[in-house]
């Protein structure tokens, strides 16, 4: 799977894409592969405040539960209902349909210290 050029990536294997002052957050293909078959996704309620670097939910697979860290600060404006019913979609389309949450950003400048697609691929190549 390719890593979209317009996304920004974190060391904890989340991605974020920007649309005006709204960010969409998900986990990377590398993350879903490491986790294995995903059985449950625990997301916050709409309206919850998220803070860069802090956990906002978790992704549960058959072998582990992994916390998801927010790459940005803001307020949750939407959560992906698809994952409540079909968590396995996260294995199938982690960069597209299986986004996790959308956030109204406090500031878009937080994205500046995140990795580009090329840097992220180098990072996981080195892991």
């Amino acid at each position, binding site marked *: 799977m390719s890593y979209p050029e317009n996304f920004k990536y974190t060391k904890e294997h989340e991605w974020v894409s920007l649309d005006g002052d709204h960010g969409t957050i998900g986990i990377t293909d590398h993350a879903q592969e490491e986790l294995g078959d995903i059985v*449950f996704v*625990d997301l916050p309620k709409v309206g919850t405040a998220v803070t860069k670097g802090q956990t906002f939910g978790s992704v*549960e*697979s*058959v*072998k*582990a*539960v992994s*916390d998801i860290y927010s790459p940005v600060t803001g307020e949750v404006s939407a959560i992906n209902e698809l994952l409540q019913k079909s968590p396995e979609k996260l294995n199938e389309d982690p960069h597209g349909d299986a986004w996790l949450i959308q956030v109204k950003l406090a500031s878009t400048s937080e994205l500046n210290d995140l990795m580009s697609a090329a840097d992220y691929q180098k990072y996981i190549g080195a892991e």
Partner: protein
Amino acid sequence: MLDAIGLKSEEDLIAYLPSDVRFDKRLAIDDGKSEYEIVDYFRARSAETAVGYASFLGAGVYNHYRPVVVETVVSRGEFLTAYTPYQPEISQGTLTSIFEFQTMVCQLTGMEVANASMYDGSSAVPEAAMMAVRITRRDKVLVARTVHPEYRQVLQTYTQHQGIPLEEIGYDKKGRLDLDDLRKKLNEDVAAIIVQTPNFFGLLEQLGEMKRLVAAKGALLVVVFTEAAALGIIEPPRDADVVVGELQSFAISPSYGGPYVGIIATLEKYIRQIPGRLVGETTDAAGHRAFCLTLATREQHIRREKATSNICTNQALLALMATVFMTLYGKEGLRELAVQNLSKAHYLAGKLPLRFDAPFFNEFVITANGRSPEEINSKLLEQKIIGGLPLGRFYPELTNCMLLCATEMNKRSDMDAVASAFKN
């Protein structure tokens, strides 16, 4: 061997024991007896002091009949020596019996999902409190003073180190949770209210009204039971969000304090917050029905400090005793058992001065007028009858009161003897 570990004498091995817990006298038995003679000596002594007593003591541990076949089933090697069923391919027997247990607990409590058992009723209470704290994301817990005092102490032991403030709700003049006190103390900081039914005084609590109050504030209702036999006749606590309790009444010997077996059961929507082991039903590769441990990612051996609890096992053998008991008795048998308990207790209570005027199951509080409960118990002991629990120890305002319990095991003649002891 002492040299190898750097000690001088056998006495050094126990040097760490404080002197006030050491038995420094000589055993009251003559020297020079053979092993056979010593065993015989103790057998004779115990026949004098521990056999042939009638008991009217309840207060969290109950004297019920243990059908013989319970022992027959649990002493089978396959059950007695089995380990935790981590490998489903070699543990279908164990897993099936635990699944049956979980199913029966749900039927008994009116809940949708139950785990494979807790260590005991008392430790299940803080687990329910912590569940409520996680679910509601609030940190305060209210607990009724009519919940078993030792259960409340265990709750305190856990919550004091978890940043969960506890507040007690008093009881009204009928001996039940004071709804006005609850209304005053309930607010949006409260994660749960913990109430026991039948409560420590043996009285049935009014769960419906409590549920209305609690739900209106977005808090959870946790219902506790110490006397499982009551569930044979009272309505299952369907108003609860979490039910916890003790199954010692179901073929678990009192054993001087344990081991016992607790339960925790809840609604399906909270399944990921429940602590402990869960057995699930599934199909194997050949399409046959099979069982396995499931949702293990909540547990501490995987999630570590983020686990729902640090509980890491269950009380499999005792849960099996309770399962055999529930299977043997069935719905009708449990009802019959409950009716017998109800009848006996009400027969006895009818002859005594009751402290609280409210419906009760097999326990009730009486007022000892004139003499102290301790004095009455001494007189009863002379007749080989163990009386009830003097309440002053846990409720200073009820120092002249005693908690009595009558079960299917109590004879009419003994009950009449108890009634007489109160009259004289």
